[in-house]
């Protein structure tokens, strides 16, 4: 026996706060996982975290690593529970926040409602002073009006100040000066300047991001600081980390300064887990698919890298323009399609599934809590894909009567019976997900047949075989312990920051030095920032990317700049890599000059990652894990007698084939006829899809 390393992850969700604690023997690599759950405690979220740690009996003094994920930021935004923000903008541009971009996605609807700005006009004020797009001062910043503005803000009860000036991505001196003056005049007020969050052009997107950040700042900062204090009072001696939207973790202090970067921390830990799992099993090209109760999310991982972008919106769909948030977020597609998604028939007899969800209350009809809408879960239950005698891990009795009635009602509107309606629901739900999966793969020029699919979340195993078949994916992995998979991603994360900034220049030999300087300066900034937090430069690993386009274009293609410093002799190779990537995605290349629009540098530092150990595998047919046989309706693949396997009894080396069902307390894996299953040395379920 070696030393035991304890790594814990806590996650604050809308209803529950979860704990996953890994106790790992540093010599054998064997890990023991403990989980606990307690209620989320708004508005004092830290209490729920401390509660769940004591409920899980975690000895904080012995914990070597503690990561924390939270939906607090996204919830504060969507529930409009932030503070009153005052905005200071460049003279002539206070209305940028309200003008937005003028787009109307729901274009035949003449009653479209434009999203309302988070700061009303009377709290949007201006200061004279201009910086050009080249970063040169063209008009002096005049701070004289500032005291009067702040007096008005005080009188109006403003609780946080946002500052966003034009072209601050190119030169932040005006924002810095204004911010310093606000702090001097009003030391208690939280102030957020755009340059400390986003260093890219597009003033509306940057202004809105700054405003939303200020909007959630006081509450998020207070909560993170109370969490820090509560943890140390209970004996925790380490540095707590916070999961970010870029698939990395950051220090609690840094997260408290710019909490908006936590906006998509939940999905990002799951996607990172898929990337890590891929690395572990030797598949670095992965399509990650996370199917939950209300949504499904997917992302593409190429060569072990997740794609990080800054064009992210909240509340955006075909009906609304939403609000942009220009922070580094893992590039994912999310659709309103999960286990609880409601099936409905429109007035013209067309069947739809989602985006509305039955939620936790009343939940799907089969929960027997008064739900009358048929959901995807009800359809899966009706078709025998979910075991009615082992519903929700045996904790709830499936109300087959309610499920049948709800599905029959859908069928009546379609003119078919319940069985046919249930198959229809599953097929439509699958098709919605297939279209989302195509968005992250085929639409970007990637052939899904060259990728391994990693499916997780409560509904991952239920639908992923059918989806993989449809896309031609040949290898599907359902992780060993799907219920703690996201938490595992959190503890496997590195300290990571993404520095993305606008630098417009031609891609030419003459510009090589400028490109190199921009990259090196960013790395220097990163080293200084991390250094100030006790992370020494030699622990940092950098990845460099450039954003390129043909001259006159707007949108860019990001290319990794590998192989050391950018030098004149290397420019042709960069141009060729851009052209090849461009052609893959868009089918053609041009004989036109290429421009660099910006750079993207990632700085990562390991914070002691866990080495997972492979278990001894012995070949067997899985008979030891069989719990029975039942008829299962595989929709298009027909009804078959499927062998039912008990998930917890599966052991490395077991092999069997479909039709089969694997039942876990938290999830069900539906294996179609003809597919081969094997359990790998880590306990993962590997399904070979035979198309």
């Amino acid at each position, binding site marked *: 026996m070696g030393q035991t390393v304890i790594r814990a992850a806590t996650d604050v969700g809308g209803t529950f706060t979860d704990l996953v604690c890994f106790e790992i023997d540093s010599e054998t690599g064997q890990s023991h996982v403990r989980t606990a759950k307690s209620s989320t405690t708004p508005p004092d979220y830290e209490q729920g975290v401390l509660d769940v740690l004591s409920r899980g009996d975690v000895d904080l003094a012995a914990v070597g690593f503690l990561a924390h994920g939270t939906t607090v930021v996204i919830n504060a935004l969507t529930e409009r529970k932030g503070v009153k923000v005052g905005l200071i903008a460049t003279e002539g541009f206070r*209305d940028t926040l309200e003008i937005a971009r003028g787009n109307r996605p729901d274009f*035949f609807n003449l009653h479209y409602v434009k999203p309302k700005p988070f700061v009303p006009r*009377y709290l949007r004020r201006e200061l004279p002073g201009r910086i050009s797009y080249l970063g040169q001062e063209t008009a002096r910043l005049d701070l004289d009006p500032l005291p009067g503005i702040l007096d008005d803000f005080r009188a109006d009860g403003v609780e946080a100040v946002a500052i966003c000036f034009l072209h601050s991505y190119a030169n932040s001196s005006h924002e810095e000066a204004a911010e310093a003056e606000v702090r001097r005049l009003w030391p208690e007020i939280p102030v957020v300047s755009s340059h400390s969050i986003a260093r890219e*052009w597009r003033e509306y997107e940057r202004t809105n991001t700054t405003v939303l950040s200020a909007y959630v700042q006081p509450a998020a900062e207070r909560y993170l600081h109370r969490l820090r204090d509560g943890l140390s009072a209970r004996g925790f001696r380490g540095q707590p980390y916070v999961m970010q939207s870029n698939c990395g973790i950051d220090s609690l202090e840094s997260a408290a300064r710019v909490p908006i970067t936590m906006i998509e921390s939940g999905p990002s830990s799951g996607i990172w887990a898929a990337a890590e799992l891929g690395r572990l099993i030797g598949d670095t090209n992965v399509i990650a698919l996370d199917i939950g109760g209300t949504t499904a999310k997917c992302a593409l991982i190429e060569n072990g890298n997740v794609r990080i972008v800054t064009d992210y919106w909240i509340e955006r769909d075909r009906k609304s323009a939403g609000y942009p948030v220009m922070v580094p977020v893992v590039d994912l597609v999310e659709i309103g399609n999960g286990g609880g998604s409601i099936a409905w028939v429109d007035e013209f007899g067309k*069947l739809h599934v989602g985006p509305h969800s039955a939620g936790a209350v009343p939940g799907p009809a089969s929960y027997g809590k008064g739900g009358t809408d048929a959901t995807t879960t009800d359809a899966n239950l009706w078709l025998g894909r979910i075991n009615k005698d082992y519903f929700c891990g045996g904790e709830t009795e499936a109300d087959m009567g309610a499920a049948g009635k709800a599905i029959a009602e859908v069928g009546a509107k379609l003119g078919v019976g319940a069985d046919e309606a249930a198959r229809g629901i599953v097929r439509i739900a699958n098709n919605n997900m297939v279209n989302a999966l195509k968005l992250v793969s085929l639409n970007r020029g990637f052939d899904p047949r060259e990728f391994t699919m990693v499916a997780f979340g409560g509904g991952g195993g239920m639908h992923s075989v059918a989806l993989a078949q449809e896309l031609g994916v040949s290898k599907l992995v359902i992780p060993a312990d799907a219920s703690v998979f996201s938490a595992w991603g959190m503890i496997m994360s590195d300290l990571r920051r993404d520095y993305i900034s606008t630098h417009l220049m031609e891609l030419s030999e003459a510009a090589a030095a400028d490109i190199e300087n921009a990259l090196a300066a960013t790395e220097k900034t990163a080293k200084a920032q991390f250094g100030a937090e006790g992370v020494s430069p030699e622990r940092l690993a950098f990845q460099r990317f450039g954003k390129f386009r043909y001259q006159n274009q707007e949108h860019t293609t990001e290319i990794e700049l590998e192989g050391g410093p950018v030098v004149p002799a290397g420019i042709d190779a960069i141009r060729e890599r851009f052209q090849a990537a461009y052609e893959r995605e*868009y089918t053609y290349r041009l004989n036109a000059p290429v421009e660099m629009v910006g750079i993207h540098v990632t700085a990562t530092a390991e914070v002691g990652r866990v080495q997972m150990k492979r278990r001894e595998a012995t070949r067997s047919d899985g008979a030891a894990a069989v719990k029975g046989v039942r008829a299962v309706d595989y929709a298009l693949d027909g009804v078959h007698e499927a062998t039912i396997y008990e998930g917890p009894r599966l052991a490395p080396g077991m092999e069997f084939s479909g039709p089969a069902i694997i039942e876990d307390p938290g999830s069900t894996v539906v294996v179609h006829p003809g597919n081969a299953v094997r359990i790998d040395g880590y306990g993962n379920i590997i399904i070979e899809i035979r198309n």
Partner: protein
Amino acid sequence: MEQTRNDPITLEIIQNSLQAAADEMFAAMRKTAMSSIIYEVLDMGTGILDPKGEIASSGAGIPAFIGVLDKSVKVIIEKFSQPGDVQPGDVFATNDPYYGGVTHLNDIVVMMPVYAGDRLIAWTANIAHHSDVGGMAPGSLTGEAVSIIQEGLRLPAVKIIEQGEPIAPVMDVIRVNSRMPDVLEGDLWAAIASVRIGARRLTALAEKYGTATFAAAIESFMEFGERASLAALAQLPQGLFELTEEQDNGQFYNVKIGISKDRFTVDLRDNPDQLAGPLNASRDGVMVAAQMIFKSLTDPYTPANGGSFRPIELLTREGSVFHAKEPAPLGFYYELELRVYDVMWRCLAKHMPDRLAAGHFASVCGTFIGGIHPDTGRQYTVIEPQLGGWGAAPGADGNTAMFCGFHGETYNCPAEINEARNGLAVDRMELNTAPGGEGKFMGGRGIVMDYRVRSESGFLTAGYTRSKFPAWGVAGGHDGSPNYIEFIPREGERQSFAGVSGLATGKDDVIRVFTGSGGGFGDPRERERSKVEQDLRDGLISGATAREVFGL
């Protein structure tokens, strides 16, 4: 999985996949285009059509382009009707309204036949505004044109790619006719990529489900569109409605709309003769305007397809402004289409206020600014529609700063990008607080925007409407405020106008754009007091207006 399967779920899945393919075509075009009018303003549209050229599915973009593509494809089908005329890998183009181009010469429609094996199963197509297609003026649009010949290169429904190989002479001709050949070429290739990507998806879809099922899905989708339209049409008040409205240019436009259970008839025969200048529209273009108002009235929430528009009947008189004859110029067709759209809207609004709000600023406010970028020395051309105010409806204030009804998923150009790309200074972009649009519910606000020119020898062209007669109020709501431009030269007199062609601009001249508020709804004195106080506090109305108009 190769058997034919015509169950409703399979058909639905194919229909969803068609929508996804049209969206993907749109995204590809957007990301690769070189003109800001395409990639930012998204003055473009994508669609999938059946083998006969009927719209099966349309992508995002602007609603005014959805009803264009079918008309273009039908002209190609008619012109290339002999065996071998249309082959796998071919790509066709038209931009001429007299040859299926519908709009004006700047808009090039690119079309590709889609095959499964050797069987034609569909067409993919897109349309986009190109920055310069030649002609007498930079940007190809000018109020001075008296013939379409002066408005640029005409592509009268021609093949540009044969079985995958670009037809070099045609491509060369297109390129050499533009003042911005690189940009035109880049944008054209973006369009070609878009139709190819769509075609690839459709072929895969037809191969998976079988061509018969694929065709059945499209057919049933169109039937669904028609059923949806007819069901909603039956809910509208029936009868004959008529309106005559005076225009900024002194003309009177007349519309008669007949609504019955299964027919929506628009009669535009009683209208002025076509003009010598470019404020004319093709019959196809006017049909698009009728389709748009019809779709918004009947079924705004489901995607449009050929079936959706079947109940429409359009009557026009050849030789009138709404049915121009060759060689009438059509450059500013969009303002005219928007006028007829707005007149139809107004004609019906008072009879169905729950469906139609008060008038909006209702002009594209197309603003064309060109010159030399002072920092790069390169030629630039700004082609920008402007944001303005929308009308109030019972229960809701109008939206502020949105593109007009002809645009949809369209984005304005950020000042930061405008300054970098075009070398103009944008000194302000703010809400226009001019009086107008007062009501129990307020019209939304337009904008004021200053472009300051930074180099000599530039030009300005614009053609705004609703300048003399602003957006109309309803039920006692006040009319909105006007759309116009104020030109403030560094030296000399300020001038104000709604239209100008090729005005010379120099360093530090300011082009100030004003767009109007939408019309108000209801008596301003009935507006909730707390809302009047909030408007006052937000500086959207003056103290005098609060007292005198709202009675605060």
